[in-house]
């Protein structure tokens, strides 16, 4: 019996990012959610990091042996969900 295979562990289901993908980025020195997001799109899908966010934070803390509080989270900006430009235009006209 062995340890878990990080290639089979999905962290971000919106963008199909595995734990293995995160480990690769950690090895390259990326250690904040903001950086991981820009490179791998983790947390940029429909859930906007509401599902993967805490797992990413946990893995950062574990890998770099830092307290959870020090694992930096990403900046949150509008919108919280996808909206068609057409609908924004229609809504703004009224």
């Amino acid at each position, binding site marked *: *019996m*062995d*340890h*878990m*295979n990080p290639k*089979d*562990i*999905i*962290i971000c*289901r919106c963008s199909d990012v595995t*734990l293995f993908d995160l480990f690769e980025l950690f090895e390259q020195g990326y250690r904040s959610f903001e950086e991981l997001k820009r490179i791998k799109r983790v947390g940029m899908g429909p859930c*906007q990091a*509401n*599902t*993967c*966010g*805490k*797992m990413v934070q946990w*893995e950062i803390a574990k890998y770099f042996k830092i307290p*959870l*509080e020090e694992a930096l*989270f990403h*900046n*949150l*900006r*509008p*919108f*919280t*969900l996808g*909206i*068609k430009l057409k*609908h*924004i235009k*229609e*809504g*703004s006209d*009224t």
Partner: protein
Amino acid sequence: MKQVEVLIIGAGPAGLSAADILLEAGASVAIVDRSDRVGGQLTKQTHMFFGSQAHYASKRGIDILTILFDKIKHHPNLHMFTNTTVAGLYPDKVVACVQESRYFTLQAKAIIVATGASEKSLPFENNDLPGVYAAGAVQTLMNVYGVKPGDKVLMVGSGNIGLIVTYQLMQAGVIVPMLVEAAETISGYLVHASKIKRLGVDLRMRTSVKRALGTKHVEGAQIWQLDEQWQGIPGTEETIPVDTICLAVGLSPLTELLQQIGAEVTYINELGGHVPRLNDRFETTVDGVFACGDVAGIEEASSAMIAGTIAGLEAALKRGYKIENVAERRASLHASLATLRSGPHAAKIRKGHEKLGVKS
């Protein structure tokens, strides 16, 4: 742009309680909720609540919802926006809303954020296999829609949600052979744990899921024991034949809107994640923006109702409304909240508040 006086985001126990006192004070209230059903988590809480009579003890969550909503639903100063998601919150209190394909904006004088929480997930092999559910989703399927999620379920997590959902699954005729918990002891109420133990559920402490088995759907779960560092111990694996894995591994406050509007948040693990910094009037660091309920730290519905009433009362005062016997009412609400947070199960909440530098 439509102007509203007090905008409440979230029609759960906190948001509805805030609306009640605001309407009573004479304010005009708009509630936005992304669901088409009012009530938040109360819509699926078919179990009876604990606590004192003042906190709706022995009443079921769904019945408490009826009581709360019946009090306000016909009020002429209440405007409901259901099936509507707040997509953006801006510093000038402009609120971008989406109702299906309709986009519109509102501007509020004061905002109460009562968005609640989202469920945490867990990294294990094949955790994206159909049949892996979060406990809240299982509860919604069963108690709101009357749909059985599976026939044989492995429950992961022994907080009150894990324990209660296990019992409700069994009431629905679903087999729950085992519950695994990563910690050394049960984290929910012992009375719930005893009930499922008597019904034959194998409760395993210091144990977690290693992988979900199956190709197209969960056909089993491999579990393993954990060491002191929460790491799985190779060689301790066991295969449990189940078709569903239910994750009840905690909740995380939904503070994204508060962060958008520029409210200061701090990461407090004991409270579930990022929580807003609040003053004793439950106002965030942004003037006129209040927060209450799980978004301010994970607790339960009873405290969310009291916190919602406090936030509503303070927002009403801020808008210049008079509330009779305000000093006594405020004191008694804070005393109620302190009582709910005084037991051994609230130790985590008290520690979280201590880290945050606020009184429990």
